[in-house]
């Protein structure tokens, strides 16, 4: 436990020290919230029966889980693998499970700070009420970040080099974020995009986050979405266990 807390602090230190990554994964959703919030935050989205600002606020939390837990984690871990940092970690007495647990919890801490900031900004700048169902929201964020972190670790198997990590990961996660309706309502999407959105985990994560935040749903009334996100999470874990490597690719 002492080792875990030490490693958690180390992971947080590393995240905030790495300005580029912190900007990309942490601040980008906040900047998008400010941008799009000022563009259509005051509009009424008829198809969703909600104003733009609360709709976007929950959407940016969805975008945030994709950028911190999925994209950011995948890029970080590929770089650490290919530069030999993970290999070095394996030469120390730090148990691998403790290291991975600290990395995952650190990712969640970062995401939680981000979600709190988004909610704070929404409340101050866009007059969005702070959600009532905070425990349900917390549960949704925990499950979502675990599922996307597992998918992020699974994705590291598809990336061969540190140089290629940003390109590959962006190629996967940016279209996913848009198709899943984090910025715009999928109800106004053409049929083929909606068909894609219907299988993506981020669609369901964003949907249940919105229902909990805007419509005061309990987490147990979101079992369908929860099931889809969890199923993707399980797939992520199974694939990650098969493809995750500690050592760089052999030259």
């Amino acid at each position, binding site marked *: 436990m002492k080792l875990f807390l030490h490693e958690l602090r180390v992971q947080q230190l*590393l995240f905030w020290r790495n300005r580029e990554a912190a900007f990309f994964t942490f601040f980008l959703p906040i900047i998008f919230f400010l941008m799009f919030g000022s563009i259509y935050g005051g509009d009424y989205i008829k198809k969703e029966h909600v104003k733009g600002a609360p709709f976007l606020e929950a959407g940016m939390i969805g975008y945030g889980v994709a950028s911190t837990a999925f994209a950011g984690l995948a890029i970080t871990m590929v770089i650490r693998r290919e*530069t030999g940092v993970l290999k070095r970690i394996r030469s120390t007495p730090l148990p691998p499970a403790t290291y991975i647990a600290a990395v995952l919890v650190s990712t969640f801490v970062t995401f939680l700070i981000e979600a709190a900031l988004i909610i704070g900004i929404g409340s101050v700048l866009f007059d969005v009420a702070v959600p009532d169902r905070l425990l349900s929201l917390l549960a949704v964020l925990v499950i979502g970040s675990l599922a996307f972190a597992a998918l992020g670790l699974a994705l590291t198997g598809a990336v061969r080099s540190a140089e290629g990590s940003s390109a590959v990961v962006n190629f996967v996660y940016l279209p996913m974020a848009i198709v899943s309706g984090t910025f715009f309502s999928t109800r106004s999407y053409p049929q083929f995009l909606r068909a894609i959105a219907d299988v993506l985990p981020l669609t369901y994560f964003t949907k249940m986050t919105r229902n909990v935040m805007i419509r005061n749903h309990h987490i147990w009334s979101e079992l369908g979405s929860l099931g889809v996100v969890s199923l993707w999470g399980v797939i992520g874990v199974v694939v990650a266990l098969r493809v995750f490597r500690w050592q760089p690719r052999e030259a």
Partner: protein
Amino acid sequence: MKAVEVKGLAKSYGDHEALRGVDFSIEVGEVFGLLGPNGAGKTTTVEILEGYRRRDGGTVEVLGIDPAHGNSAWRRRVGVVLQSSSFYPALSVGESLRIFGRYYERPRDADEVAEIVGLSDKRDARVRTLSGGQKRRLDLGLALIGDPELIFLDEPTTGFDPGARRNAWDTIRNLRSLGKTILLTTHYLDEAEQLADRVAVLRRGSIIREGTPAELTGGAVDTEIRFLRDGAKVVEHTREPTRRLNELTAEAIARGEELDELEVLRPTLEDVYLELTAE
């Protein structure tokens, strides 16, 4: 007591037999040099001993434990310098040493280790700003921070300038005097000659010679005799230097000549090595 015992170690990558029955052992407190050209199997051997690679055959014991099943308690006793440097670039030298020190039960003092590897004045410098040689020294520092009994050094001075190499050698000699056991791989012969108590020469996955540097340079290789005859350079090679020298000098005395610029050169480890590893 043996720190490392390797018997019949075999490893293949596909069709390529990287190691074909390697045997050697390292006594506690000994500096053992594993010498060989690139591709001979040095890194494969060391990484099996470090627990990074699985072997296909043979037995390996490192500090009495099969590295394929090395646990945290075992890793506390082993320090590893990999062939390529790897750090968190955003941390400083001091932070790196302290953070990695926390993984061990009884770490050495971070400032003291920075001193040992010659990075005292770089303690607050971010790792990304270090030169190649400084990074290599931090590699060594991170291997020493847990105060290990056994240290693996995979080509620790490759790419160093001569001054930095001398410093690294002093550090390694210093570790030896502290009673550490060291396995050193290198393709620099002078490095093995300078540092190792015993040397094994690896070629194409087999150990072709093993012994102290003096033993290796002792018998098998020709001694070189050089002198001037009628103003022209003569170079002779012989396995019996005493007898040949006697003949040469006797002839010269009989002719009433001087053997100008007479030199008798004992083979260096380099000569042995080149002869042994010649295809």
